[in-house]
């Protein structure tokens, strides 16, 4: 019974496919999985948007949406209908083809990342040997779509927003990759399935997740910072800083194309939360051994939604950074710290079992964090802001 609940989607898919001729079955199985991904994650997108609007409302001491349905829970449906029926305006000076392709490319690329995420036991669409590499490779392509959107609009705000977004995404991709690299070093595999398997052990009923090690904890924090910047979320939402750039690279988008950008942003956040879950939070494994009877996919989606709540919480709490602060933070603090974390992970690997490695690794990381934070604060120009204009 427990086994059945765990594998319910796999069993269901095989049952549905069994009506087809044998030759078509493998293709149909893949198609079914793709359809499931394309249906599930936009549904989660609707839930997260509602959660965000309600949650942010509460954090800002207001109600949030409460008109459509009981407690406003049908607000995403209303938003969807609205964006479908709105007029699609393309500026006359815009580059039509590129302007149209940008949101399409974004959504396609963002959905491709899900192909390698293990969403439960036996629930990976393609179990690639180099799954992590695939995820980062397709993730890197989103920058191009952001650039296409900003450039093709022929609008200075769009172009500035796109330049900011691309610069920021390139800068934070380095710590993102480096913090994940520590996991690859310890696991010895780029396959996401193997990374989850390596964490799915228990000692005294407690899990061996990577977040519960010194380097894993530091890596998770660095990963969280980098992902927040990668997905252009507050406090790193300068590319769409509405007080300066209207809406950044999608200023000139309206109607359903705007909705596609919105969808792309949230589905990207969900996928990168899924990767974080897989890398640091044990993927689909249960947080306690006695909870092993709960279906594995419940844990995966639960952890992803928890990460989304943290995203929303951070957005409701922190003010937006300035462009120079953003870049300094990336190159002078996050990047060196993730390099140090990589060395610490190697030290952890070669110190062997025992309590010494806990002390040594924690001490190195704490020392590096404190010293670099102090040094950064001392040389940081805290005081009146100086303006420098382009000549």
């Amino acid at each position: 019974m427990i086994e059945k609940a765990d594998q319910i989607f796999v069993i269901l898919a095989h049952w549905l496919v069994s009506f087809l001729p044998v030759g078509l079955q493998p293709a149909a199985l893949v198609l079914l999985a793709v359809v499931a991904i394309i249906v599930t994650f936009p549904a989660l997108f609707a839930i997260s948007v509602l959660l965000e609007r309600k949650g942010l409302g509460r954090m800002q001491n207001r109600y949030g949406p409460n008109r459509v349905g009981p407690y406003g829970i049908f607000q995403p449906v209303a938003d969807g209908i609205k964006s479908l029926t709105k007029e699609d305006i393309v500026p006359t000076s815009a580059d039509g083809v590129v302007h149209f392709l940008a949101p399409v490319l974004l959504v396609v690329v963002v959905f491709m990342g899900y192909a390698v995420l293990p969403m439960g036991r036996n629930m990976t669409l393609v179990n690639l040997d180099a799954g992590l590499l695939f995820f980062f490779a397709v993730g890197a392509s989103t920058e191009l779509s952001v650039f296409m959107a900003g450039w093709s609009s022929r609008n200075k705000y769009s172009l500035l927003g796109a330049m900011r977004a691309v610069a920021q995404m390139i800068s934070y991709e380095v710590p993102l990759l480096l913090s994940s690299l520590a996991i690859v070093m310890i696991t010895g595999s780029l396959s996401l399935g193997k990374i989850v398997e390596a964490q799915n052990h228990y000692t005294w009923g407690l899990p061996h997740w990577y977040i519960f090690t010194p380097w894993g904890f530091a890596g998770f924090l660095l990963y969280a910072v980098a992902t927040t910047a990668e997905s252009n979320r507050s406090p790193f939402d300068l590319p769409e800083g509405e007080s300066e750039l209207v809406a950044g690279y999608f200023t000139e988008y309206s109607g359903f194309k705007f909705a596609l950008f919105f969808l792309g942003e949230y589905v990207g956040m969900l996928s990168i939360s899924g990767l974080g879950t897989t890398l640091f939070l044990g993927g689909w494994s249960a947080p306690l051994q006695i909870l092993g009877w709960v279906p594995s996919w419940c844990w995966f989606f639960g952890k992803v939604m928890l990460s989304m709540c943290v995203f929303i919480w951070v957005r409701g709490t922190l003010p937006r950074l300035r462009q120079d602060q953003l870049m300094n933070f990336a190159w002078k603090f996050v990047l060196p710290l993730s390099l140090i974390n990589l060395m610490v992970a190697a030290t952890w690997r070669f110190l062997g079992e025992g309590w010494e490695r806990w002390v040594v690794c924690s001490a190195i990381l704490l020392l590096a964090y404190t010293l670099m934070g102090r040094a950064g604060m001392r040389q940081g120009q805290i005081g009146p802001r100086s303006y420098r204009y382009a000549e």
Partner: protein
Amino acid sequence: MSIVFFAIAGLSVAGALAAVTLKSTVHCALALTVAFAGLALLFLELDAQFAGFAQILVYVGAVAILVVFAILLTRGSETPKDGVYSTKWLLGLVTASGIFAVLAWAVLHSTWALPGAGGAPKAAPQVTVMDIGNALMGRYVLPLEIVALLLTSALIGAVIVAMHEKEGAQ
């Protein structure tokens, strides 16, 4: 030679041709990206996962962005009125065909140069990402270190070139 191969090859060739013939420089850069992506798909079709993903990560993710940034920062994004074609297109065509012929000849004869490849072509050995990693960290560690040193010096050089000189500094 499957349908997939011809579709991907068509995509790459179309992208490359568009990169040469289109008028707007940014369009050319984007078309070039399509050609890069097509090449990556070709690698994947040949079961070379690492090469394919590295191609996407480096070329689509980084080189394409670098190219469009360079175009935007050098004000080259405006389309010139008198076209973008060089007057020496015949010379270019001859050079390109020559290089293509040499490369094609080398590729077509390479199977015979492999040790142990007799009459019948052998099945390609299965190379996993792990094998590549082991080779890079074992047998080819010295070239890897040299490349790393070269890249680091290039990085430092770029920083020095781009560094904003402080006023009053000697």
